[in-house]
């Protein structure tokens, strides 16, 4: 116990003196997530909101053939722009998001009571265009329905003839669950924070020590290697846990800066959320510290360890990616799988759901068991002869 404590204190002291470790573990690692998050969310939300409020500018070709329709669209907030020469090209190179083209015979067919055609030209592969196209289509639909109804009325028929079925949508999502969907990436940020918080330490304490040739004198002391390893793991955990604390606090503060309520969403990243996140992330802190040390123990140099660990960093992203591309129904067994359990659990919290004590316990206990196995494996590698030999 004393040995472990000695090693722990020395590693913490030594690494607190290293600016690179400090900035990466306690500054960039935990804070870059919340900051990027707020920036992106703010930009996206603000732009969407602005678009919805403002009149939409649409180049119209042949506006003179349908003056009544254009007047009706204007009332709904469409600002007709002068015709442009090559609308197809313009939407492709983002010169315009959507163009309305009215053919010359619009008036003729209108007067005959036939279906008149108008063209909506857009490029659906342009990310920005989507909401504008939706809005223009919506305006046109409204106009078309109204004119259809008026024609029926003019012939003495009830407009309901046109609508044998009326559709009423009842969306069961809550402001919180809509937000949860939007913030599905958040759990990965937390895992990443833990990973980044411990990474430099894990490299430095094993691969770094070997490269600087201090592992050999260290192991000449009359202490079992596993006790030294425990001290080092404790130091890594201390850093990654601090990193996570800062990250969770950061998100808590940044959560208030996102104007989610304007979209009819609620995000709650407050103390109760933070507490539960910390609890279910705890086994991951230990597991990742062990895995990072294990990987670093196989690397011949600091650089090599860095390369391996960057690759290992992609592993925690897998559950996040999987869950975002294929919406899997959350099942009980998922809580028992480390990484997946945390992902599912935090997503659940974000959607405003509650985690039962049993779910939390499953998540924590299974995580601790896997962490213990990883630690035992790392201890085995630590006791091998070649670990200490630097040259």
């Amino acid at each position, binding site marked *: 116990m*004393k*040995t472990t404590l*000695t*090693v722990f204190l*020395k590693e913490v*002291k*030594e*690494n607190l*003196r*290293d600016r690179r470790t400090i900035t990466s573990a306690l500054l960039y690692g935990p804070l870059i997530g919340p900051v990027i998050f707020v920036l992106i969310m703010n930009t996206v939300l603000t732009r969407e909101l602005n678009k919805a409020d403002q009149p939409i500018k649409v180049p119209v070709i042949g506006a003179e053939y349908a003056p009544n329709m254009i007047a009706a669209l204007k009332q709904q907030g469409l600002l007709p722009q002068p015709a442009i020469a090559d609308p197809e090209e313009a939407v492709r190179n983002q010169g315009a998001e959507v163009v309305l083209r009215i053919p010359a015979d619009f008036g003729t067919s209108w007067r005959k009571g036939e279906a008149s055609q108008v063209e909506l030209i857009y490029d659906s592969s342009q990310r920005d265009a989507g909401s504008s196209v939706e809005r223009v289509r919506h305006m046109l639909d409204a106009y078309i329905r109204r004119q259809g109804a008026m024609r029926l009325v003019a012939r003495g028929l009830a407009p309901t003839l046109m609508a044998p079925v009326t559709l009423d949508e009842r969306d069961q999502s809550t402001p919180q669950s809509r937000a949860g969907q939007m913030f599905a990436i958040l759990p990965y940020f937390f895992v990443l924070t833990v990973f980044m918080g411990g990474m430099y330490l894990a490299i430095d304490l094993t691969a770094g*020590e070997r490269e*600087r*040739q*201090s*592992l*050999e*004198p*260290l*192991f*000449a*002391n*009359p*202490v*079992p290697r596993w006790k030294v390893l425990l001290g080092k793991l404790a130091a890594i955990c201390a850093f990654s846990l601090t990193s996570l604390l800062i990250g969770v606090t950061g998100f808590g503060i940044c959560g208030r800066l996102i104007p989610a309520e304007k979209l009819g969403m609620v995000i709650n990243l407050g103390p109760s959320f933070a507490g539960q996140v910390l609890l279910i992330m705890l086994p991951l802190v230990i597991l990742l510290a062990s895995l990072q040390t294990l990987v670093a123990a196989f690397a011949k140099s600091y650089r090599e360890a860095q390369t391996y660990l960057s690759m290992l960093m992609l592993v925690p992203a897998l559950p996040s990616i999987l869950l975002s591309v294929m919406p899997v129904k959350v099942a009980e067994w998922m809580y028992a799988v480390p990484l997946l359990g945390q992902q599912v659990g935090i997503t659940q919290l974000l959607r405003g759901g509650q985690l039962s004590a049993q779910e939390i316990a499953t998540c924590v206990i299974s995580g601790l068991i896997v962490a213990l196995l990883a630690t035992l494996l790392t201890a085995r590698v630590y006791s091998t*002869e070649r670990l*200490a*030999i*630097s*040259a």
Partner: protein
Amino acid sequence: MIEVKDLHKHFGTVKAVDGVSFQARDGEITGLLGPNGAGKTTTLRMLYTLMNPDRGQVLIDGIDAKQDALAVRRRLGVLPDARGLYKRLTARENIDYFARLQGLDDTLARTRREQLIKALDMADIADRRTEGFSQGQRVKTAIARALVHDPKNVILDEPTNGLDVMATRGLRQFMQHLKQEGRCVLFSSHIMQEVAALCDRIVVIAHGRVVADETPDALRAQTGEANLEDAFVKIIGSEEGLAA
């Protein structure tokens, strides 16, 4: 007292140590002499239990290294080939770390540390971080760190490697001092003059085997060479001749 009996160690197909036996007695300086790659470092690494021998036995003060590695390490002060100081710690902090790992209490650790700092004449660098230390300063710190628990047996792997003349002289005096204190000092070197100047006994290693184990005088008499360096060349050379 260090006893080595018939040590073997191989790496892949290379027999790094191939049947090494010798003794290093208390109150004597024993030199392990051999060309680069002769197996000196590997032999020493088996002594301080960093490596396990394929075959053979290591006894430190009568304790078998295989039976009780921790007890053996407690009785050894080791300056490995790899000096490896902690750069972001001061010299004092480096020494303290090892003192705690050796299980010394704070008072004893402080006393020993200050004794060594004085004996090694390193008071002026004791509170500097070891990053940027000269080779000599590094060796001093590493030795102080290795001897903080007052071990009976001292193993030094190529202690004068990379040191200038003054630092080398200082270190030799320090080793004599250790001998006066009745310790068993075992050090390796590939420099003839150094071994000749210091040693009570010389163990010559070549190709992983002991080719001579004598006092300097006996070595000279055995080879018929008045000069130790010539004696050394003759021993190694003839052995190579036999092997071929």
